[in-house]
């Protein structure tokens, strides 16, 4: 794949106005699928979570999962949408073996939720309002693996293998209206918008929202129009964007790529583009053409969904607080400074901190782990912090520190082992025999040995040069192979000097 030429981002913005639109797919974490009683589970043996409905077998009939409807209404309400008094499912017809029926059950002109608004906060605190066009219910498709060919991609593949475990998993697709005026914030807005949707569905508890697992997927529409032109430019739709960071990078990339083509007098092809995490580039996919004629028609196997006003109001009353409100509350509860709090928000780690704190760690300790050590490891491994470890796991490490079992250095070691999948923090402590030496006798013996080697230290401390204790503490830590509580050693050395 030839690498596309890119225009400098700032120059691109001088010449063109970026226009955005997003489609976010959210997989609901119901127990069963949208239209069948097969388990809705990630992983598992291929084709083990399927029923005749998932396989489109003759005579099988879909039945709507009530929980999925409730979740969809809750999400619609959280997005500030109106809920349709009557909405219908429709068949979206296409030939591709990711669904066995040759159609996807979706919603077309009668979505369950429409006309909403989401406030998205940028890193500097500015709020951008994103208008929501609609949120509709549909089913996810199965997973294809292409076999043969050099790259594992469809080109050159000899055949494909299909796993229908994901076919029929309930999805809500959230579609924004066209977003104007984002300007240089466009890439950041893209990331912040998806992060906001993630926060909302996590707060509602309706999705696991793990982007790396495809629970939350974003298609980003980007077009450019020359400054002063009214007519919109041709857009591309970038798919396969599976992390918050990628959403930002993909939008920036498309702005730069399209600007370069347009400035050379070229035209943008209306097409699907694929984001490649490894190269940080998009490549051309399917051109949009009459292949997009899906011949939607009302799904004759299903009946209209007509939620009662009582149900809608019951779900509205149960909505969690809005993300902006939640942030204000958490900042106050945790007592963070503006800088500390903004750092957490910008790293997209708010929900992780909540989980860590609710598992027993102090807010400051939780913050230090996530924005410090874990962010560092994630960065080095080019992954998202949330992929590495859960809040409960982090809290367990911190509790061992609070109990005095681990010092900071050992805690970092244990954290790395947890991330490496070696077990829970306590299991690792037991397995590796890690624990600080809290026996003062052993510490005093080590201090005596160190003082014998550096006899002038006590004298210096008595003269007020307290920092001289550092040499002894260092020697003791080394003798104890790092398994000592440095603060306790320091106390003991200072006591000795006063004796």
């Amino acid at each position, binding site marked *: 794949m030839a690498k596309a030429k890119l225009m400098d981002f700032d120059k691109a913005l001088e010449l063109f106005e970026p226009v955005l639109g997003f489609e976010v797919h959210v997989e609901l974490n119901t*127990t069963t699928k949208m239209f069948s009683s097969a388990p809705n589970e990630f992983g598992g043996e*291929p084709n083990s979570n*399927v029923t*005749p409905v998932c*396989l489109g077998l003759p005579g099988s009939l879909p039945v709507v999962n009530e929980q999925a409807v409730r979740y969809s209404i809750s999400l619609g309400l959280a997005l500030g949408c109106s809920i349709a008094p009557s909405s219908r499912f429709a068949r979206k017809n296409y*030939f591709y073996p990711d669904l066995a029926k040759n159609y996807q059950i979706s919603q077309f002109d009668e979505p369950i939720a429409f006309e909403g608004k989401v406030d998205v906060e940028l890193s500097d605190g500015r709020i951008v309002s994103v208008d929501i066009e609609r949120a509709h219910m549909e089913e996810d498709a199965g997973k294809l693996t292409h076999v043969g060919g050099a790259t594992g991609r469809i080109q050159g593949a000899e055949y494909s*293998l*299909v796993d229908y475990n994901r076919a029929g998993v309930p999805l809500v697709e959230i579609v924004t209206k066209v977003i104007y005026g984002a300007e240089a914030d466009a890439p950041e807005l893209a990331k912040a918008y998806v992060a906001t949707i993630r926060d909302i569905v996590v707060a509602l508890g309706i999705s696991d929202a793990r982007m790396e697992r495809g629970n939350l997927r974003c298609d980003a529409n980007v077009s450019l129009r020359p400054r002063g032109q009214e007519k919109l430019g041709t857009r591309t739709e970038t798919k396969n964007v599976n992390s918050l960071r990628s959403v930002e990078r993909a939008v920036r990339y498309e702005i730069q790529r399209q600007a370069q083509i347009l400035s050379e007098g070229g035209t943008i092809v209306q097409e699907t583009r694929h984001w490649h995490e490894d190269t940080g580039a998009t490549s051309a996919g399917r051109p949009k053409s009459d292949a997009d004629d899906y011949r939607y028609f*009302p799904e004759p196997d299903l009946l*209209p969904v007509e939620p009662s006003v009582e149900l809608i109001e019951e779900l509205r009353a149960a909505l969690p607080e809005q993300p902006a409100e939640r942030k204000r509350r958490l900042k106050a509860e945790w007592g963070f400074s503006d800088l500390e709090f903004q750092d957490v928000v910008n790293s997209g780690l708010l929900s992780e901190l909540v989980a860590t704190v609710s598992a027993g760690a102090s807010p400051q300790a939780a913050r230090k782990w996530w924005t410090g050590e874990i962010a560092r490891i994630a960065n080095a491994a080019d992954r998202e912090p949330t992929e590495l470890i859960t809040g409960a796991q982090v809290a367990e490490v911190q509790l061992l520190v609070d109990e005095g079992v681990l010092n900071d250095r050992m805690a970092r070691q244990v954290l790395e082992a947890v991330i490496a999948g070696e077990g829970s923090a306590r299991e690792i402590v037991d397995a590796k025999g890690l624990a600080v030496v809290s026996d003062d006798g052993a510490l005093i013996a080590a201090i005596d040995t160190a003082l014998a080697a550096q006899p002038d230290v006590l004298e210096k401390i008595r003269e007020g040069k307290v920092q001289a204790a550092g040499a002894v503490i260092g020697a003791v830590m080394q003798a104890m192979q790092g398994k000592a509580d440095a603060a306790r050693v320091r106390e003991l050395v200072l006591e000795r000097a006063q004796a």
Partner: protein
Amino acid sequence: MSDISEDRVRHLAGLARIDLTNDEVTHLTAELSKIVDVVATVSAAATDDIPATSHPIPLTNVYRDDVVTDDVLTTEQALSGAPEHDGSRFKVSAILGEEQ
């Protein structure tokens, strides 16, 4: 009169992945036109105040509880009707296309 043209029939045939000869296109264009005209008489009878229906029985909100039932197939059962499989997944021709 309906607006079924030969081009439209070719387009539909393409969407449905059906190869048609020119003779078949001509024949089907005439036939589909007649069918559409018949359907149009229903449209003429349905005035604006009659809502569209998609189902003969006026029911709504037919739901299922979110519970796994014993309809779930084993992998072996799932694959039992497949012309080709690899023991756990369906084997299909490599099709130029992609997820929608």
